[in-house]
């Protein structure tokens, strides 16, 4: 396997594991800025490194998760159970794609469709948030 792809798979798995640890800790310490920054950085690193390969579906899904986290960590909204569900789905998907990359050095044929479905979930979530924020105002 290409050493750079091998490095990406290993590094991204470590970052997914670190992100999972952050979610567990955030249950004990909701809103902890340091944990949110660590979580953001894990997603940011996966996204940045994924740009070195031709895997746009993975990059887009992680980018969407990173965008939501950026708003959360800057105080724009709280991390809700809906966020966490979205992140866990996203992490599961990325983990499965890393397995695919390890076995075949490419994403499966349905990656683009799955990626789009994940992005639509994010968009639906955003619509709800925007609506709620307007309503609160």
């Amino acid at each position, binding site marked *: 396997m290409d050493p*750079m792809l091998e490095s990406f798979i290993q*590094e991204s798995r470590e970052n997914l594991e670190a992100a999972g640890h952050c979610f567990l800790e955030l249950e004990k310490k909701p809103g902890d800025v340091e944990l949110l920054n*660590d979580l953001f*950085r894990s997603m*940011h*690193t996966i996204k*940045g*490194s994924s*740009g*070195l390969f031709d895997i746009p579906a993975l990059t887009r899904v992680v980018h969407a998760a990173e965008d939501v986290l950026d708003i959360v960590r800057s105080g724009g909204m709280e991390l809700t159970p809906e966020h966490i569900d979205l992140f866990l789905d996203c992490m599961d998907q990325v983990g499965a794609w890393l397995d695919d990359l390890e076995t075949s050095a490419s994403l499966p044929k349905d990656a683009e469709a799955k990626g789009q479905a994940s992005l639509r979930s994010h968009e639906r979530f955003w619509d709800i948030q925007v609506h709620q924020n307007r309503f609160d105002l």
Partner: protein
Amino acid sequence: MKKILIVDDAVTVRMYHRQLMESMGFEVTEAENGIEALEKGIGEDFDLFLVDVNMPKKDGYRLVEEMRQVPELQAIPVMMISTEEDDLDKQKAYMAGANFYIVKPAKPDEL
């Protein structure tokens, strides 16, 4: 041979930039964050720093700000690199003291 310090917390990105810069004839040294970069930078005669923005411990902005206060490092050109294309991010990089700003991953023709 020209010497470059590549500063990035992502192993895979460092690997990519190392290959690229070595193919362009640079002698490459790596650092994982801003603290390590300052330690390695002082006492070594680097011709260029390639600095990631988002890093733990000391990020790229703080690293470049501090470099500009250190006599041995203040004149070394810094190329900041980030996944963000926003003008505000570029502005922050130049305000911190960077000489160039490119979007990650760097492409050979940009460098």
